């Protein structure tokens, strides 16, 4: 069912980046509905799939991503849990060992820190330390929050902690198309997969085929073609990078934009191939830079291309501090399309241009309004 050709076309169209590439008759879905549909189709396909986590069965159904599942599949396959992330993760692993395929949902990525032992010491290691005699087909969904004062403990992007660990896959789709295809792929994968969602991506809409399909693990996607600089945007920063590419067009800089989609395994071939042409790489993450996903991508590209060609490399992400709640400081904490464009241009021109594009209404970020 996997259809990579389709996926290339859809991903760009989802963000309106390649005008005319989306056939008019295509169905449009929100990221939220794409996640829900993937879970629904996987549950229908395989009775071993179940969904649980805090509040998956409550009236808000995790932003709607679990809406209707309880009614359709019943409380044995869809249930809310006690507030016990550590034990519930361990239980999920036990279920997986017994042949179930759990999707464990966390409304914030920050709460994964309570489940670290089970995820890192057990889920990621079981297959290896038991000599290949067991599999842990576990999907852990978790969300990165942003804005409205969610602050220190509700805004972290911790995906690189898991990229560090062999034995657990990490995926961070940025379009509704990939949201659906990656969740289906994660559920069918016999290994533990951390599925990262960004709250602001939940509002994205884009074409999503109705039929079930998967987006192959370990394959990145070129979402805009250009020759001057390669922008790699992770998770929500993919959206900001595509906007940055538009700003850059206005000053004659052609950016190639890549969505890695899967952070582990990471498709360094696609990224390095692009950088070999552009000679310039800017990786933008929705996380800190130290020991982060951006550092990993830059390091792998540098290892691959050193001596092959001259390189200009840069990373952007959270300011190296705790996320503040007051809006003025919070704005400074995050990169955005304009600051990304400015950094990319500096990279291309090899000087501090002192340029920050004026904000264009068509390229504004979503402003998230609380209370949560």
């Amino acid at each position, binding site marked *: 069912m996997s259809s990579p050709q389709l996926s290339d076309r859809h991903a760009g169209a989802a963000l309106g980046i390649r005008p005319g590439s989306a056939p008019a008759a295509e169905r449009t879905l929100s990221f939220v509905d794409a996640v829900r549909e993937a879970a629904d189709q996987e549950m229908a396909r395989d009775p071993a799939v179940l969904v649980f986590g805090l509040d998956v069965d409550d009236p808000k159904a995790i932003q709607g991503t679990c809406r209707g599942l309880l009614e359709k599949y019943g409380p044995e396959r869809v249930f809310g849990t006690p507030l016990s992330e550590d034990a519930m993760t361990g239980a999920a692993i036990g279920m997986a060992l017994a042949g179930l395929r759990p999707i464990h949902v966390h409304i914030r990525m920050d709460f994964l820190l309570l489940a670290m032992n089970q995820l890192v010491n057990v889920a990621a290691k079981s297959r290896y330390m038991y000599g290949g005699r067991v599999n842990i087909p576990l999907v852990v969904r978790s969300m990165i929050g942003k804005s409205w004062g969610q602050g220190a403990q509700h805004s972290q992007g911790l995906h690189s902690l898991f990229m560090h660990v062999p034995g657990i896959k990490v995926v961070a789709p940025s379009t509704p198309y990939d949201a659906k295809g990656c969740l289906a792929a994660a559920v069918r994968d016999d290994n533990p997969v951390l599925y990262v969602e960004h709250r602001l991506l939940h509002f994205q809409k884009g074409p999503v085929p109705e039929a079930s399909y998967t987006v192959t693990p370990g394959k990145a996607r070129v979402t805009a073609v250009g020759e001057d600089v390669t922008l790699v945007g992770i998770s929500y920063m993919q959206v900001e990078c595509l906007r940055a590419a538009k700003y850059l067009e206005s000053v004659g800089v052609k950016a190639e934009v890549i969505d890695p989609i899967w952070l582990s395994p990471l498709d360094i071939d696609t990224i390095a191939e692009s950088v070999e042409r552009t000679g310039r790489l800017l990786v933008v993450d929705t996380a800190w830079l130290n020991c982060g996903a951006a550092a990993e991508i830059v390091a792998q590209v540098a290892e691959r291309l050193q001596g092959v060609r001259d390189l200009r490399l840069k990373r952007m992400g959270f300011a190296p*501090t705790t996320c*503040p709640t007051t809006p003025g400081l919070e704005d400074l904490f995050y990169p955005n399309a304009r600051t990304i464009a400015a950094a990319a241009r500096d990279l291309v021109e090899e000087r501090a241009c002192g340029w920050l594009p004026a904000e264009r209404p068509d390229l504004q970020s979503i402003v998230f309004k609380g209370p949560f």
Partner: protein
Amino acid sequence: MRAQLYRSLYRIRRLEEEVARVYATDKIKSPVHLSIGQEAVSVGVCAALRPQDVVFGTYRGHALYLAKGGDLNAMVAELYGKATGCTKGKGGSMHLIDPEAGVMGMSAVVGTTIANAAGYAYALKHRRPDAVVVSFFGDGATEEGVFAETLNFAVLKQLPVLFVCENNGYAIHTPQIRRQGKADICARAEAAGVPSARLNGNDVVGLARRTEEALAEVRTGGGPWFFEVATYRWREHVGPGEDYQLGYRAAAECGPWVAADPVRRLGDALPAGERTGIEAEVETEIAAAFAFAEASPFPDSAELMTDIFKEEFDVLTAAQR
């Protein structure tokens, strides 16, 4: 005593009603978890505390912060994200702190401060035996491993700590019976060896008395105590409004709690003149706090990169020694 309790209750209720009112203007860009309906728990327990005693709380911490004597102006300014806020606009509504008043912090991650409170109590036991710690948390927090683990440690070390579980019946939209196989939190405290009591969260005077009694033991080396206090959250889990339209609880469920509202009942029991005097003073104080927040500046952009590490000897470190 009653007048003081009323002042504290009325002040918290009115402050949060103002927060809810102002929220519509988007000046408070912070997720607010209001305590409206639950104020008497913090007020009753804190009435039995001394200034040197210490409390730890949760993201639903406005009532606790004020009941323990946290600075009102600094709290409202914090909700506004201003430089004069209790964390300079860095922590927001969920991370209120006022060390001078013994308010030692609040976490947005459920359950975490329970253990921090025990650690603080360990330090007090050895270094400041005149003080105790009170740890406030919700019914949901008792499902986290840290609750069971902390109870065990507190008993093992006979720590001067009172655990106060504010059981409002829900964790977000899920009732206790759908989360706990045996919905008896006191039994779990007892099983760990912590003496416990189940109390009425609307009886502010009774709470103050029972806290006084329990702390008499805690203060004299008797080890930890546990209270499960029945209470009710009148508004939505997070945000300024009500949430009965969501359908997870019936609006009628709130009826008895509103009928037993300790704020109104205590007010009604006071001589009319005394009551209006208190209310007028509180209104003035609250209006001044909002005016202070409005007039305060936002933090300078340089503040983004301060407070990450403590770099040199400062007054704060001296105070902690």
